C-alpha cells in the first residue's frame, strides 16, 4: 500500500521532506501555517515574482521545490493551516496519530477544522528568535531579528528609519541586509561575542565557510556597500523612550556577557532588532510523544527517526543548524518516511552534507553562545514575561519567598509564562533565572519537577466554536474515520 507522509511545516526542512517523499513515491500532505510556503527563511510577498532575490539565499532551490511539490498530484499542500494539537493512539499501528489543524485566516474564528492522518509524520516546525530581556525591551520599536526579516522580506516594510541590529550569531547579518534593502539606515550590527570568540569559532570552519561563502560574502558586501559597521563584544543593555524606542544604551561586555562599567554609550535609534539565538519549536514534537535529548532538542537517529515509531523530525527542532542542515535533514526524513533506506544512493549527498554541517554549525553556535553574565544587565523593573508583565524584581522576590523548586509552581506563583504566548518568549529565560537564583541567593533549590516550558498540548490557540466543529479527515483512512467525531 502506498505510504502517506504528513509533513508539518513548509520551510526548508519540511519542503525538502515533502519533495523527497514524493520522489520516493509517497503521497504527501504538507501543512504550512502561513499563507505561503517557504517558512521564515524564504518569507516572500504574495506575488512571488516581486521577491527581492538578493535577500534570499538559495531562492532557486525554494522555487524548484515549491513548484514540484505544488504541482505533484500526489501532494496535498494546505497553507494557512495551523496545526494546533496532535493526538495519538498508542498501539494503533500506522495511522496512530491525528494532526489537528485549523485552516483559514489567522486566528479564526471560523477556520475549517481538519484531522490529518497518514502512515508517517515529519515534524519540521522550525525555530523562533530567542531574545534576552533588557530594560526597555518591551517598548514598541524593539523587535526581534525575525520580525525585521519578516516585515522586510514579505511586506517591504522597514521596522524603523534608524536601526541597530544586535544580539549574537550569523543571523544578524541577513537581518541588517534586509533592513538596508527596504530603506532603513542601519547604524550598526552589534555582536555580543568577542572578536576572539567569533574568529576562533569561524576560522577553522573553512569547509563550512566554503559552502556558505556566496551567502556570507553577499551579506558582507552588502553591509560594506551600505557602510554598516559590524562591531563585536557589545550588547544593548537598555532601550529608552516613552511610547516607543528613541534611543538605546550599548555597553561593552566581557566574555561572560557581563557589562563592563563605564563603557555605556547612547545611540539615537527609532528601532532596534535583537536576537540572541534561536529556540526550537518543540510543542508539536512533544505532543506527538517524541523524546528530547539532554540538549533540549528532539532526539533523532541517523534517519531522522524520533523515539516514536513513524514520527520523524528535521531541521531546527533537532538542533539549530540553519537552512542548509534543514534541507539535508528534510530530504533524509522524507525519503525514509516514504519507505526508503538511509543507505540508498540518492540520499548520500544529503547524509554527507548533514554530517559535515551539523559538526561545523555546532562550532559556530558555540562561538555565539549566550554568556551567563547577561542577567547583570537586568533591573528590578525589567519585564521578564511580556504577556503577564512579570518584572525581574517580582519574579525574584516571589521565587525567594516561596522557594519554589518546580517550573510549574514557579509559573503559577509568578504568572511568568502563563499568558497567550505560553512561555515561548520568556520560558527559557525563567528556567535559567531559577537556576541562577539557586546558585546565587539560595532562594530556590534546583528544579525538581522535571517540567520544561516547551510542553504545550495546545500548540496554538483555538476557538471554542472551532473546537466543537466537525473536523474533516485528510490523508489516509478517510473512509474509516469520517464518523470518528460521533463515537
Amino acid at each position: 500500500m502506498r505510504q502517506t507522509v504528513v509533513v508539518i511545516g513548509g520551510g526548508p526542512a519540511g519542503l525538502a521532506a515533502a519533495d523527497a517523499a514524493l520522489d520516493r513515491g509517497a503521497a504527501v500532505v504538507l501543512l504550512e501555517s502561513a499563507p505561503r510556503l517557504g517558512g521564515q527563511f524564504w518569507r516572500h510577498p504574495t506575488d512571488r515574482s516581486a521577491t527581492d532575490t538578493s535577500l534570499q539565499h538559495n531562492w532557486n532551490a525554494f522555487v524548484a521545490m515549491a513548484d514540484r511539490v505544488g504541482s505533484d498530484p500526489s501532494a496535498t499542500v494546505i497553507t494557512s493551516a495551523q496545526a494546533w494539537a496532535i493526538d495519538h493512539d498508542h498501539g494503533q499501528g500506522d495511522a496512530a496519530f491525528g494532526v489537528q489543524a485549523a485552516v483559514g485566516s489567522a486566528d479564526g474564528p471560523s477556520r475549517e477544522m481538519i484531522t490529518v492522518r497518514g502512515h508517517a509524520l515529519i515534524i519540521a516546525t522550525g525555530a523562533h528568535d530567542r531574545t534576552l530581556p533588557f530594560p526597555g525591551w518591551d517598548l514598541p520599536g524593539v523587535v526581534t531579528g525575525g520580525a525585521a526579516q519578516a516585515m522586510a522580506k514579505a511586506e517591504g516594510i522597514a521596522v524603523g528609519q534608524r536601526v541597530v541590529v544586535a544580539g549574537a550569531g550569523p543571523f544578524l547579518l541577513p537581518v541588517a541586509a534586509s533592513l538596508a534593502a527596504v530603506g532603513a539606515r542601519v547604524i550598526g550590527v552589534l555582536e555580543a561575542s568577542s572578536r576572539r570568540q567569533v574568529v576562533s569559532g569561524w576560522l577553522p570552519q573553512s569547509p563550512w565557510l566554503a559552502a556558505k561563502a556566496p551567502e556570507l560574502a553577499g551579506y558582507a558586501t552588502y553591509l560594506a556597500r551600505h557602510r554598516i559597521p559590524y562591531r563585536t563584544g557589545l550588547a544593548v543593555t537598555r532601550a529608552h523612550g516613552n511610547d516607543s524606542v528613541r534611543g538605546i544604551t550599548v555597553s561593552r561586555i566581557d566574555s561572560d556577557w557581563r557589562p563592563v562599567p563605564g563603557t555605556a554609550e547612547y545611540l539615537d535609534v527609532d528601532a532596534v532588532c535583537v536576537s540572541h539565538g534561536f529556540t526550537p519549536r518543540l510543542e508539536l514534537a512533544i505532543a506527538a510523544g517524541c523524546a528530547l535529548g539532554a540538549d533540549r532538542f528532539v532526539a533523532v537517529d541517523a534517519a531522522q527517526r524520533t523515539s516514536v515509531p513513524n514520527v520523524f523530525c528535521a531541521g531546527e527542532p533537532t538542533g539549530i543548524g540553519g537552512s542548509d542542515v534543514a534541507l539535508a535533514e528534510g530530504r533524509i526524513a522524507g525519503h525514509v518516511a516514504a519507505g526508503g533506506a538511509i543507505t540508498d544512493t540518492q540520499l548520500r549527498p544529503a547524509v554527507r552534507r548533514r554530517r559535515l554541517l551539523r559538526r561545523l554549525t555546532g562550532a559556530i553556535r558555540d562561538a555565539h553562545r549566550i554568556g551567563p553574565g547577561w542577567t547583570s544587565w537586568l533591573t528590578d523593573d525589567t519585564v521578564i514575561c511580556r504577556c503577564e508583565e512579570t518584572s525581574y524584581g517580582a519574579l525574584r522576590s516571589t521565587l525567594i519567598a516561596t522557594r519554589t523548586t518546580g517550573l510549574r509552581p514557579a509559573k503559577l506563583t509568578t504568572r511568568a509564562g502563563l499568558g497567550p504566548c505560553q512561555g515561548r518568549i520568556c520560558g527559557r529565560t525563567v528556567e535559567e533565572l531559577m537556576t541562577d537564583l539557586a546558585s546565587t541567593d539560595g532562594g530556590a533549590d534546583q528544579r525538581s519537577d522535571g517540567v520544561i516550558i516547551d510542553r504545550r498540548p495546545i500548540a496554538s490557540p483555538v476557538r471554542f466554536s472551532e473546537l466543537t466543529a466537525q473536523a474533516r479527515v485528510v490523508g489516509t483512512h478517510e473512509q474509516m474515520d469520517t464518523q470518528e467525531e460521533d463515537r
Partner: protein
Amino acid sequence: MPRPSDVIVVGAGIVGAACAYALSRAGFVVTVIEAKAAASGTSGQGEGNILVSDRGPGAELVLAQYSLTRWDRIEQELAEYLPTGFPELEYELKGGVVVATTEAGAESLLAFAGTQRPAGVTAIELDHDGALALEPHLNPEVTAAVHYPQDAQVQPVIATEALLAAARTLGAATIFGEQVVGALRGPGPTITGVRTDRDEYPASQVIIACGPWSAQVAETLGSWLPVRPRRGVLLVTTRMPHKIFHKVYDADYVGAVVSDDHGLQTSSVIESTAAGTVLVGSSRRQSGFDQSLDLHAVREIARKAITIFPFLADASVMRVYGGLRPFMPDHLPVIGPDPLVSGLWHATGHEGAGISLSLGTGDLITSLITGSTSPVDPRPYAPARLPRPDTVEVPA
C-alpha cells in the same frame, strides 16, 4: 542521617502541605518529602475549588463545611508566618451558581438543593430572571438555578506553597526531588521512618499524602489503599473582559462528581480568574495514569461550555491541562491511621475536593495524632472502613 522527625509527610500537594502546617503549628517536628515539587501533581492541575454546593448531606459535606471556616481565616493566619513578598492566595468567596437548562434538570437540581439546606448549606433558589441578574451572560434558556454563596476559590499552587512556607517558618523541613522507596521498620508491623533514593529519614509517624499515587506509596511502605486515578481536563482561555462573576456549573456536575462511571463524563464548571482568563472544566474518566491529551474530552467540555455561556463561542483556548484525581470507590477521603502498619497514616482520596478539604484534613489528622478532640467525627474517613483484599499481608 537527617534529623529524626516526629512526623514525615510524604507528598507536597495541598493535603500534604496542610498536614505539615497543622502539625508544625501543633509543635511537631515535621519533614515533608516530595518526589517532584510542591503542587506538581493534582493540586496544581485543578481550579482551586472550595465548594459546598456539590455535596449532599453526609461526612464529606461536614468536612467541607469545617474546612470552609478554616479557609475563611487562613490568609490572616498565614500572614504571621509568610516571608515578605509572598504572593496573595487569591482566596475569594465568590459563590457558585448551578444552572439547569432543561425542565428535568431543573427539577432534580431544586430537589438536591432541598436536601442540602437542612445540612446547613445556603442554597438560594433563583428563577430565570434571578439567574440572569447574577450572571447576565448566561444562556437565556436557563430553566432554573441555585445560588450557593458559600462556594469559594483559591489559587491552589500559591496556597500549597504558602502552607509549606508557613510550616518551614514553624520549623518544618521540606525535601524536594527525593522519591520514597521503602520503609524503615521497627519491631512488628511498625514504621519508623522512610528510605528515599538518597537518604534515610527516621520518624515516629509517617503520613502518606500522595493523592492518586498514594496506592503505590502505600504498597512501598507495606500497606494497601484502593485509591485510583480519575482523570480530568481543564481548558484555559486567553484574557477577556470580565463576564463571569461566580463559579458556574451545570446541574450535571453534581451527578458526575458522585458517579462511579469509568467512561468519560463531562459537565461544565466555568469561572474567571483574577488574571482575566476563564477556566473551563471539567471531565472525569478513569484511564489509569495516562496523561496524554484527550481531545474528545476537550471537545465535549467546549460544547457544554457554549451551552451555558454562548459568548464563549468566540473565546480562544490557549492552554489545556489535565490532572489525576485520587478516586475512592466509596467517594470518601481516607484520613487516619493505617490498620496494618503502626505509625503509618493516610490523608488522601479527596477526588476533586482536595483543595477544599485540605485544611480540614490537616486539622483532623493532627487531632488524631495528638489524641485531642477532633474538629469533625473522624470515623467515616477511617482507613479501617475499607474492605481489604485477602492478598495483602501484614508485614512482620
